[in-house]
């Protein structure tokens, strides 16, 4: 992964959208344990539009693509996930700007911008049992792996797998946490013992991206 092209971003966006749609029921069931069970259905409302409208997107830059996704998610997704995921993509879009090729550093900067957006929008910090608890360690790992010289040789295949594995493990680690955000927070002590739905989703999505990436670039 010497540079992340429009093509690569297309792959990431499409895989994210398809993974969310395929996992509608699974994500909702995770949310039903201590939340209200709408998480997967909410995401689907937006990501199925991303899929159906994908070919009509303005592809002139990475920022243009991300902006379109951010608009769709803000417009169509209800619950906490609409504003959170919408903001993440819109902030990522602003960071990407009109670039058509992204360096490793660009990718990390874009992901950090998304994380900052989520934190500002939702007010959550690490350890409060949200998707941040999977997303942040994943980006940390990605940054560390991409900094290694060998990552230049395999188009980032190993780095992305490492990031996905970090997310999967971190999602599992949300189990003992007390939910402090979203509807799950109302369950207090009873939220302890089950994984966070959003964090788990991040792991599932990153694993899917990693597999698709290896398929194409590995």
């Amino acid at each position: 992964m010497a540079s992340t092209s429009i093509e690569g971003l297309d792959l990431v966006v499409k895989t994210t959208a398809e993974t969310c749609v395929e996992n509608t029921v699974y994500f909702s069931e995770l949310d039903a344990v201590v939340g209200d069970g709408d998480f997967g259905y909410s995401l689907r409302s937006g990501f199925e539009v991303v899929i159906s409208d994908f070919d009509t997107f303005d592809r002139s830059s990475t920022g243009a693509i991300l902006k379109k996704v951010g608009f769709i998610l803000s417009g169509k997704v209800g619950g906490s996930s609409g504003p959170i995921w919408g903001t993440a993509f819109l902030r990522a879009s602003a960071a990407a700007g009109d670039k058509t090729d992204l360096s490793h550093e660009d990718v990390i900067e874009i992901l950090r911008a998304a994380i900052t957006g989520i934190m500002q929008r939702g007010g959550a910090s690490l350890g409060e049992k949200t998707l941040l608890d999977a997303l942040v360690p994943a980006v940390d790992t990605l940054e560390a792996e991409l900094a290694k010289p060998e990552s230049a040789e395999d188009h980032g295949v190993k780095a992305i797998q490492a990031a996905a594995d970090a997310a999967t493990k971190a999602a599992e680690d949300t189990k003992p946490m007390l939910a402090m955000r979203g509807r799950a927070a109302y369950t207090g002590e009873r939220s302890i013992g089950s994984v966070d739905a959003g964090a788990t989703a991040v792991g599932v999505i990153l694993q899917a991206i990693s597999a698709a990436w290896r398929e194409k670039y590995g």
Partner: protein
Amino acid sequence: MKKFVNDPRQFVPEMLEGIYLASGGRLKYEPKYNLIYRADIPQDNKVTIIQGSGSGHEPAHTMIVGKGMLDAACPGDVFAGPPVEFVYETTKLLSSPKGVLHIVNNYTGDRLAFEQGREMSEMDGIKIETLLVNDDVAVKDSTWTVGRRGVAGNFFVIKAVGAASENGADLDELVRIGNKVIANVRTLGIALSSCTPPVKGSPLFEIADDEMEVGIGIHGEPGRQRTKLVSANEIVDIMLNAILPDLPFNSGDEVALMLNGLGGTPIGELYLLYGITHKKLEEKGIKVFRSYVNEYCTSLEMAGASMTLLKVDDELKKLLNEPAEVSIRVF
């Protein structure tokens, strides 16, 4: 799933169309934003009062759109706050020179959508204020990093500001009145059964035949504890013991008392609970000024009930006594 439904994903739009058609011209409907609004709104000399929230709580919020109540509701899907777009477009379409009041139940999703929708609308020059409803005493304070949930007490906020706004109150006045209601209203809910969102197609949670969930959320979120189902007398005690010390409500206070059905409990049982509660309050020297026994804020077909107490002063008493007209027909 035992429901009257076609394609489950069309449940909310088909319901909204029914509300519109049943209104006999009193309501308008904009399907793009799940938007139900008064046909005679916006009015230049009246603040526009808007609520979003999730669907599945009917008659809240789409069925209480009418004179003296909400001017518009733009709900999301079942149990999901509306997308930002609904909030923004609704606010833009219905904004009045006197301003717009957003009444938001305190859930992350609703708050975020209304915050973002408000920011966008303000950039268009619209004057907006927000009320955050948070009447649910169910969960212990220490874990409420996100604040309390908004539940059936929402009705009293809408009734009070709706009446005041018909009488010409400005935006600041409505915020003052709304926050007075919010400061004085408390609710606790108890579920006897679960409920099934149409798209999900299966119950949100399991509950045994001899159990009840004390402090249930209106989206099926677990509450204080799961216990054995006890008698109606004991259930009223559990509710009063949670609600009364919380404000607190004291001897000499006057209250509006609501027994709200969660969807699957017949109104006869609500009246039974009401009678027990009324007598226990009288014993404690708390006077019932006005009583509300019906479904106001439901969780689909969940069996259960919530109790809401609102401490009233002369101003709130006057506002609660004002007339209101919504499209749900009783006669």
